[in-house]
């Protein structure tokens, strides 16, 4: 079956990682057990819990605020709150750390006005990491929540109100449960991102399993042990999946199609309106305005003009957009195939295959990249050897360091994003539609094209945009697998931040943000028009 084949191909890097257990690094594990495994595991769990809770609460609250109420600036906030997605996590983390730590402007000002003992608790701790990650990842929940709330019919809500429920109770008992698949999908994405993140935890010195992977890999020069640690991450991802399954429950989430307009927005007044606007503004400032502002300040101070800072800027930008676009399309097509296969043939095999295909999201980019590199290189050497034997002259490698393999690695890494998004959307389409279409003589293909795709449009656009933006921001896999001569904006940023040249790095970093903003704007415009 095509779906299983696709999933199998995508699972190869993950399998490569797990296969490291063929030679268990007993000694390293014993050492870790003695010194830090417990701490690392607890830290990781605590991080997941904190980020999960934080993103769920903020994303849902903002999503509901923006779809259900009217307050000053609502129109702008509705799309602006998605913007942090365009900024790489390490930029937001670095900027906020610079803002909040001892030497930063906030604490320095506090000390100046309130005396040397004044200040904030050291942000290089649990609270700092959770705060930053919540601000970085809430857009996943926000985006999906907003779409879910908007697509809920006014009729359902009005019915609840008519039956005597207050607005808050109606939200809690009707809107929230109906939005559950989207909320769970978004939160699970945020938590997987938190699991795979290395940049933020390294900057804040917070020790998680992911950080340990690099410590063992680069510090102890032991890739096999590192891969085994990465497999542990997969266990966590599995745990998250099971949690997600449990939270989603078995209830049906379909609505008999939305009749009439969406939820009527209730105008807020007085302090409530001010509070709503202020809340949105605070989140937006911390997650977007401050980091981008910092980038702009650096760019202004950067030594040379924009064009000289990054030679061949146009080419680099073009490469980035091309790769990200290709990945977005491939990831969405594959995700659609898998999700659709689950719907048409809901067997264990298909569902397991789908889940497995999405596991790459929980692994850091470097791990996926090496998981791709090793089997691909083996294949490549085989091909080259065969070519040499056939043609009698030396052959080079064609797969290793090819753009196709890079796109493959990106897809393995980001498939979960399109999977979760499309799954949540597809769930909302009642099976009765499929049955009706079938009874009218349409095959699966026509049903997909004529019935489902139009209804999935919102979800599909979201998925495309999310994968595009993620790919633009991606750095470690790009560095490892990219073709010789094909540099992206992320590479340009790395080259400069590797030696802490933050001023020069700000220019390509801003370009990354811009490259992410454009599709976000497009998606918002298109999704608001198609109601």
């Amino acid at each position: 079956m095509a779906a299983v084949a696709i999933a199998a191909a995508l699972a190869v890097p993950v399998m490569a990682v797990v296969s490291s257990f063929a030679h268990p690094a007993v000694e390293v594990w014993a050492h870790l057990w003695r010194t830090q495994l417990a701490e690392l595991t607890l830290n990781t769990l605590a991080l997941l819990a904190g980020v999960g809770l934080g993103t769920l609460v903020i994303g849902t609250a903002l999503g509901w605020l923006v779809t259900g109420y009217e307050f000053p600036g609502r129109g702008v906030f509705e799309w602006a709150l998605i913007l942090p997605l365009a900024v790489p996590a390490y930029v937001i983390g670095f900027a906020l750390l610079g803002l909040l730590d001892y030497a930063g402007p906030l604490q320095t000002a506090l000390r100046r006005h309130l005396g040397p003992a004044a200040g904030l608790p050291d942000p290089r701790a649990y609270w700092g990491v959770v705060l930053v990650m919540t601000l970085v990842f809430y857009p996943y929940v926000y985006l999906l929540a907003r779409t879910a709330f908007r697509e809920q019919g006014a009729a359902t809500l009005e019915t609840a109100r008519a039956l005597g429920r207050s607005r808050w109770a109606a939200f809690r008992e009707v809107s929230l449960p109906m939005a559950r698949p989207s909320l769970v999908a978004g939160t699970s994405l945020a938590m997987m991102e938190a699991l795979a993140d290395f940049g933020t935890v390294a900057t804040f010195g917070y020790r998680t399993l992911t950080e340990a992977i690099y410590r063992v890999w680069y510090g102890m020069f032991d890739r096999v042990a590192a891969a085994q640690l990465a497999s542990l991450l997969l266990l966590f991802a599995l745990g998250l999946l099971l949690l997600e399954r449990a939270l989603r429950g078995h209830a049906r989430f379909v609505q008999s199609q939305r009749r009439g307009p969406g939820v009527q927005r209730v105008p807020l007044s007085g302090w409530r309106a001010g509070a709503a606007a202020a809340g949105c503004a605070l989140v937006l400032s911390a997650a977007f305005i401050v980091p981008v502002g910092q980038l702009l300040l650096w760019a202004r101070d950067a030594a040379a003009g924009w064009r000289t800072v990054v030679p061949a800027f146009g080419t680099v930008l073009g490469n980035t957009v091309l790769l990200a676009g290709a990945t977005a399309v491939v990831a969405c097509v594959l995700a659609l195939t898998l999700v659709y296969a689950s719907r048409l043939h809901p067997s264990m095999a298909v569902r397991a295959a789908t889940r497995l295909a999405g596991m790459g999201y929980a692994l850091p980019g470097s791990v996926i990249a090496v998981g791709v590199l090793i089997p691909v290189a083996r294949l490549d050497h085989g091909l080259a050897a065969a070519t040499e034997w056939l043609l009698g002259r030396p052959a080079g490698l064609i797969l290793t360091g090819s753009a196709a393999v890079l796109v493959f690695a990106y897809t393995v890494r980001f498939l979960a994003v399109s999977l979760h998004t499309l799954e949540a959307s597809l769930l909302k389409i009642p099976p009765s539609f499929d049955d009706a279409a079938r009874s009218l003589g349409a095959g699966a293909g026509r049903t997909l094209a004529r019935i489902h795709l139009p209804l999935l449009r919102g979800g599909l656009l979201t998925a495309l945009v999310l994968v595009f933006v993620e790919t633009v921001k991606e750095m470690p896999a790009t560095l490892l697998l990219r073709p010789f001569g094909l540099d992206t904006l992320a590479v340009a940023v790395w080259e400069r931040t590797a030696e802490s040249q933050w001023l020069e790095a700000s220019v390509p970093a801003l370009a990354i943000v811009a490259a992410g903003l454009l599709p976000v704007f497009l998606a918002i415009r298109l999704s608001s028009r198609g109601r």
Partner: protein
Amino acid sequence: MRRTSPIRALTAAVLALPILVTWPTPPPSAQAPEVVVYSARHYGQEAAFDAFTRKTGVNVKVFSGQTGELFERLKAEAERTPADVLVTVDAGNLWNAARAGLLARIDSPELLANVPAHLRDPEQRWFGLTVRARTIVYNSTTVTPAALSTYEALGDARWKGRLCLRTSSYIYNQSMLATLIKRHGEPRAEEIVRGWVANRPILINGDAKLLESIAAGQCDVGVANHYYLARILAKNPAFPVAPFWANQATTGTHVNISGAGVTAHGKNRANAIRLVEFLSSPEAQQMFADLSFEYPANPQAAVNPLVARWGTFKQDDINVAAAGELQAAAVRLADRAGYK
């Protein structure tokens, strides 16, 4: 299960596009001499490479990446790698690359003359190009140099709550610990590290940030790579942090390197060796080190004036390969001692 064929076609087209767009060019012919460099240091090398091309007519093509990833890629590419030269940072990484068979021995009297013995591989597979001193830094308004002496002494009780360090995940710290182990043996080295940990150091992940913390008063002393301080001082001469050359009366200040080696399977061995030799010459050393405020490995090369103001200092002359040999042990030691 049937899917609409447009989707299949689209997928195929999309997958084919990147391959078509970036089809690898055939291997370079002898007519267009070039050298392919895999480099983990980006800063300051373009000028030197341009000078090499002007002098010899050989083009230099650079592929940049992180040290760990470059290693993996070189390993995976094995005998079909396009890389001729590997430039990377931290002696441990060079040691690791040589141990994995990725670098070949170079017999070059020029290189042996230009690079001091303790900054190159005893088996001549890699050579240091720039020197990075990792030394004590202190707040010049609150601490007098008389209070400072050795790295070991940072474990004294007087520094309790006043010490800032990088985390033990930082490769340069790992190398420093490795050298400590080589000098003092593991038990004594562990004692030293426990001494630091007992002073409850503030762990900051970033040398520049560490220096800023010292300047702001969050701590009074720390350990950092000298060139970060130089860079800050170049922009802000009034920055209240100064370097102190550690261990001058004993073993000498710990140093690390960025360096290069010729790959074992590169196709342009002769030109690769020429490039590495050129990079070790005083002319290139100046370009390499000057922009980044590092010390040139070649003692005949001139030192950047700002850094020269700090005077000369005794380097720890243990061969930097020790950083690699004992790196894994250093990480384990840090774990045991509670040095996070």
